[in-house]
């Protein structure tokens, strides 16, 4: 296809601002999908995405559109909507020349919009604002345009106004895409360089790579090489998204499509890698590639020890679909054998966990998540710490560093006070506060990642009655007063409950954890002492008083079976208990401490 007729673009939008609906309209108008085949919202097809209303995996659609008698190929490249997938967003944007900044006419600019717009700017894309849902009575298009100018420093006057629902303005929008988004550049006669901007796993076809041809052309049957991965393959099938996979003979410079090359698992490819022809040994990689880096870790254990193998099988299976998810075996005194799993972020962790339970049926216990820390030892070595158990003896530690992020929150200005308090309670450093529109404020913090991976978003929602949105970006690792806090039960350490915390937060955090444990651990026949300790110092303590007396009820013939059944329940309940010394800790307790609130 002639380069001049190609337009590659993506839609940047906050959740629910109408990205999927707009994509549906595009497909309708360009008749890419026959009406009767059309499922609602073609682009969001994973269950989980639908449930959570987010796009986890970038998808694509190639549409033909005729303007002024000339046929254009519009390639819509969908981007994931969450910061956990930041790198994936960047790579998807790198495959485009333009981006539609889609903003809900009644909701206005949200944190995610700000964040993704910055990524699009960094990628040098032609960005233009599209105000959606103008059919709504509550639409305040002009105000929203002003917000866009203020918050994003993007010229508002060329904004398009559409209703993805009624279709109003959508044709004009397609015209504008043709007019305003520049055609792809790239060297037609140079050796092939194609960007892998996404990959998915299909049960029948194996790995499907989503690619953008940057230079040269790719023909079916070509022998190719993945540059960073340094693996060789044959291009078994290439094609375009209609949005169903539709094979073509070749893809030329500037085109977007898919490649199937007999790659077995997603962990064999890395988004951002460059595809070259095997014979072109002198080719250079495209810029921007970064190896995967998990930022959040937690232990995942089977509830029943016998389920270890099933859990492992399930994890392997998950990894087929998700190259960003990592796992290595580990063992815990309290929980037995399990895995330390790494995730891009908290949402990613939740998604994996849900899939794991939904698809494998293995009951799992998850330990408190922690971020990756860095420790500089007195020998000058830098250790990556993924689990509290990896922390060396305190005397060997020169610096204990944690990841710090730049956090943007967009909120109605009535909630600024509450957000300030929340940010500062979580060790955030206030950076800025800007009015982006009437009554709407953008607040910036620099804040440790560990403080927001947990329940920060829930808290933010609750203090702003659901009105605030947030987004963050990793900045760097910063040394701080970090320590390992151990939890002791009758003097014995329960490794699965250990956490890393800031010195100043240990006491309240320790107290909160112990309070939860106190509720979850039943009374024993002896006193159970719960302690939180930092080094040798006890920072919090709770006792569970022993059972003093059972109910002295009547016990006659009819009660004997009943008594036995009560006792049997105890026996059965034992499977869901972990013994620490003589103390029984229910599996539930390990989960409950995750939501301990200090």
């Amino acid at each position, binding site marked *: 296809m002639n380069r001049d007729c190609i337009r590659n673009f993506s839609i940047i939008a906050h959740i629910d601002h109408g990205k999927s609906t707009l994509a549906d309209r595009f497909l309708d108008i360009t008749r890419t999908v026959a009406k009767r085949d059309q499922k609602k919202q073609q682009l969001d097809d994973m269950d989980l995405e639908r449930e959570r209303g987010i796009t986890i995996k970038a998808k694509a659609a190639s549409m033909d559109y005729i303007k002024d008698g000339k046929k254009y190929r519009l390639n819509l490249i969908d981007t994931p909507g969450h910061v956990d997938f930041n790198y994936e967003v960047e790579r998807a944007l790198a495959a485009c020349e333009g981006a539609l900044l889609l903003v809900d006419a009644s909701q206005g600019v949200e944190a995610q919009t700000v964040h993704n717009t910055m990524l699009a700017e960094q990628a040098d894309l032609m960005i233009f604002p599209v105000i959606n849902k103008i059919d709504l009575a509550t639409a305040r298009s002009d105000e929203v345009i002003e917000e866009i100018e203020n918050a994003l420093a993007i010229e508002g006057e060329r904004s398009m106004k559409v209703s993805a629902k009624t279709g109003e303005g959508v044709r004009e929008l397609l015209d504008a895409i043709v007019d305003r988004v520049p055609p792809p550049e790239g060297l037609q006669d140079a050796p092939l360089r194609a960007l892998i901007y996404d990959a998915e796993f299909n049960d029948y076809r194996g790995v499907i790579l989503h690619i953008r041809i940057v230079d040269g052309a790719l023909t079916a049957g070509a022998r190719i090489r993945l540059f960073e991965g340094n693996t060789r393959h044959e291009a078994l099938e290439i094609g375009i998204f209609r949005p169903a996979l539709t094979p073509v003979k070749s893809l030329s410079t500037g085109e977007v499509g898919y490649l199937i090359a007999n790659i077995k698992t997603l962990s064999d490819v890395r988004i951002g890698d460059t595809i070259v022809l095997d014979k072109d040994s002198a080719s250079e990689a495209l810029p921007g590639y970064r190896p995967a880096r998990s930022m959040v870790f937690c232990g995942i254990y089977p509830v029943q020890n016998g389920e270890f193998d099933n859990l492992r099988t399930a994890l392997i299976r998950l990894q087929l679909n998700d190259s960003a998810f990592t796992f290595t075996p580990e063992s815990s005194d309290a929980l037995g054998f399990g895995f330390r799993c790494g995730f891009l972020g908290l949402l990613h962790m939740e998604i994996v966990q849900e899939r794991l339970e939904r698809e494998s049926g293995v009951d799992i216990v998850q330990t408190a998540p922690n971020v990756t820390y860095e420790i500089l030892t007195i020998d000058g070595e830098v250790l990556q710490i993924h689990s509290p158990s990896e922390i060396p003896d305190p005397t060997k530690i020169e610096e204990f560093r944690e990841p710090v992020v730049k956090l943007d929150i967009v909120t109605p200005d009535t909630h600024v006070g509450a957000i300030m308090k929340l940010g500062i309670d979580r060790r955030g450093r206030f950076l800025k506060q800007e009015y982006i529109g009437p009554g709407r404020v953008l607040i910036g913090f620099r804040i440790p990642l560990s403080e927001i991976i947990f329940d920060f978003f829930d808290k933010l929602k609750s203090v702003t009655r659901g009105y605030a949105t947030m987004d963050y970006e990793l900045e760097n690792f910063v040394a701080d007063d970090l320590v390992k806090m151990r939890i002791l039960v009758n003097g014995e350490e329960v490794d699965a409950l250990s956490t890393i915390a800031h010195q100043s937060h240990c006491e309240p955090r320790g107290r909160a954890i112990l309070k939860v444990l106190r509720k979850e651990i039943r009374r024993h*026949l002896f006193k159970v002492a719960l302690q939180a300790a930092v080094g040798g110092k006890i920072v919090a303590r709770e006792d569970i008083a022993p059972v*003093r*007396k*059972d*109910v002295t*009820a009547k016990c006659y013939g*009819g009660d*004997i079976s009943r008594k036995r059944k009560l*006792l049997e329940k105890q026996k059965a309940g034992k499977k869901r208990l972990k013994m620490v010394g003589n103390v029984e800790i229910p599996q539930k307790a390990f989960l409950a401490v995750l939501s301990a609130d200090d």
Partner: protein
Amino acid sequence: MHVPFCTDRCTYCAFATMADRPALHRDLVDALLLEYGRRPALEAGMETVYFGGGTPGLLAPGLLERLLNGLQARSRLETGAEITLEVNPTNVSKDALSAWSELGITRLSIGIQTFDDAVLAGFGRHHDGDLGRAALDLIAEHWKGLWSADLLVGFKDQTSQDLTFDLAQLLKRSAPHISVYGLTIEPGTQLHEQARRGSVVRLEDTYMDSYDILWSSYLHGFGYERYEVSNFALPEARSRHNQAYWRNEDYLGIGPGASSSRHPLRWSNLRDTKQYLEQISGNRDTRHHVERLQPSDRLLESLGVGLRTRDGVDIDELERRFGDSWRIALAAGIQQLKQQRLLEEVDNNLRIPATALTRADSIAAVFARTMELPPSQ
């Protein structure tokens, strides 16, 4: 022998009872004897007979006599057998006492619950404190056999004075045996419904803990032995019938809701009196639940009920029932509990030290959780 009639149902009570229908008394008595006739004859003679309920004290002496005669037509009463009749204060009169005595009843069990008029009324009992006292006076004066009184403790707002007052009434009349039951909220009762709707119906556990010390030491001071967590007896006044349950021996229960144990079988009857009567008249089975106990089940039960008694569980008996395997099965629990001084072996009994007896259920639970091997046959 379960007699399911009560003048009215008390708000806390979940026993298989129905509002009294005197017209049904005769049918019930016949039905009880028919059911009894269908059960395998007892090999040995009867050591104890218990007319419980419900309120068997409502039955006319003639019907009780019919029952006793019917029982003895199929198996012999051992000499010195204990025959207990459960009665309410409203059933007691001088005539009734002498009639019961003539029938050969050896022991009365009277449900007093409390002497507090307001509490009795709240529970829907048909007597007040004075009637309770009057009934006890009659018994104390005219009854030659043994007797026992039930007290309920732990109802809402009960003070320690209330409790000692109730106890004192019994002590004054030298009750040979006193059962002290902590109020429990049983599903299906009015009390349960009140609690579900948010009313406070019970005393908090922390009070119960200290009240237990109060009533047990009080009774101890007057010469009573706490021979089971809820039962106190003067010397020679223990309930032999109940002890058979607690030793997990075999027993035959007849009547609506009654359960029976003939190892390895355990069964219980339909609880609904009308259904029960229909089954009997249609010559159909009255049992609605039959189970076959595994040795490990029985071992767990033997501990569950036996450890609640002062004597504990007889080791010879364990050996007889389970061979050596019981020791293997219980080894971990025994070791742990002995270490914690919550278990001892005395006079060839496995028992809980007196100070820990009130924790018997929790202690039995340790065995439930540590029991590993099912004992072999």
